[in-house]
């Protein structure tokens, strides 16, 4: 019987023909540790900032459209939420508690995001960690066990990363049009970011790539076109054979954005580096089995 298109994508994401290996289980647990670590870091950063700075809701996001989140600005409530999230994610990591516990962590994570970022700015640098917690929540609920959960979680994360980049391409095409990559647009962004740096640090000097882009519209246009094209092909990560190449291009694009626009994406880039390449093969060279106790945590 001929394979349907979505079955083909599923086969590339979840690899049903491949047996589970010790390396895969170890990598999965280390990746979960990475996601849990960043989640804990973000919730505490947001809670502390909220506690010190937030006074009024300037921009309600997500659930804040239906709930006045300013109630969490006082009485240490944001810190209490961060504390609960930390404890719950610890239980999730050890697979103690109900299957839907990760979903509660996701809801608290969302709540803390909308509490912290109710001040007008909508950052996206924490979205990949958020999507990962979401995929862990779905995986733990619908695909529990060491045979299925690692496959679903990593496969679905790769699916949403690819979708996100391609979506960003279309947002630009719709928001501006086909001339989005006009190099002069980059000049405006470089000048805008330079003010932020000048204001934050008191000093700003354009680096080599910025000077190059500012000197020539063509160079600036090529930089934008490379980034835009890379976003367009983001979805090709869904196919196992193309994944390492697409990932390498995306990581290159992020380094380019850091150099040209001074925007850093640490969590994004580390996560791309982790999920875009088959690291389990490397671990399998050194490890032949995993203890039963460890497998309980998967």
């Amino acid at each position, binding site marked *: 019987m001929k394979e349907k298109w*979505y*079955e083909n994508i*599923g*086969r590339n*994401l*979840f*690899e*049903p023909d491949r047996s589970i290996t010790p390396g895969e289980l170890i990598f999965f647990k280390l990746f979960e540790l990475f996601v849990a670590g960043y989640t804990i870091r973000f919730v505490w950063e947001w809670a502390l*900032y909220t506690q010190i*700075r937030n006074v009024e809701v*300037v921009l309600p*996001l*997500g659930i804040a459209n239906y709930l006045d989140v300013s109630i969490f600005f006082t009485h240490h409530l944001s810190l209490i939420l961060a504390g609960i999230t930390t404890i719950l994610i610890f239980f999730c990591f050890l697979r103690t508690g109900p299957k839907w516990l990760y979903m509660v962590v996701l809801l608290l994570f*969302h709540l803390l*995001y909308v509490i912290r970022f109710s*001040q*007008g*700015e*909508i950052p*996206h640098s*924490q*979205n*990949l960690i*958020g*999507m990962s*917690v*979401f995929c862990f929540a*779905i995986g733990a609920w*619908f*695909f529990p*066990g060491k*045979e*299925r959960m690692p*496959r*679903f979680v990593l*496969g*679905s994360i790769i699916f949403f990363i690819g979708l*996100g980049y391609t*979506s*960003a391409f279309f*947002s*630009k095409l*719709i*928001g*501006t049009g086909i001339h989005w990559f*006009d190099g*002069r647009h980059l*000049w*405006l962004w470089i*000048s*805008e970011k330079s*003010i*932020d740096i*000048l*204001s*934050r*640090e*008191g*000093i700003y000097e354009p680096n080599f790539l910025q000077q190059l882009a500012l000197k020539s*519209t063509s160079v600036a246009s090529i930089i934008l076109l490379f980034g835009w094209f890379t976003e367009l092909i983001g979805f090709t990560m869904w196919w196992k054979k193309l994944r390492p190449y697409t990932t390498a291009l995306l990581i290159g694009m992020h380094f380019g954005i850091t150099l040209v626009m001074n925007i850093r994406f640490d969590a994004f880039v580390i996560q791309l580096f982790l999920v875009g390449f088959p690291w389990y093969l490397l671990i399998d060279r050194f490890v032949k089995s995993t203890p039963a106790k460890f497998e309980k945590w998967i």
Partner: protein
Amino acid sequence: MRMNHLESKRGMKIIGVILIMYAALVASHEGEFWPFSIYPMFSQAGNPWTRAMVLDVTNVPDDELWNRTPLEQKPGNAVPVGQFGVDQIDFSNFVSKTDEWTTARLDAMHIMFGAQNIAHHRWMVSKVHGRMVGTDSVTVEIQPLILLTEEGSILNPHIR
């Protein structure tokens, strides 16, 4: 149970359901329902922008305090807001998105930087406007907005 072909198919069906939910949530919330997003950053290119910065205008004569100037001729050094624990992005949003400068908002600006930090200086909270001019250049202009001194804050008298 193994991740077999049947489970793989079920996985794609669940992703399909999530996609419908994802689309419904972002469509009804202007593209953002964290962690779901259409990732619209930098989607609108070529638009003029407004940011904010603080300049040390201690040595600027009173009759020149409120003059607009190009960035290249800024009247004093930039005050590094990061050193005072102020988040540049939030500060910039606060300045550029406030339409009416009430006494409470002016006080909030003074508290943000702190009288002890301002001390004997005079600091000018300024809006910075950038836009394309002609076909081959970007101009950046500084618009003085709020004068901060140890005693308090004064709004630009030309802005009412």
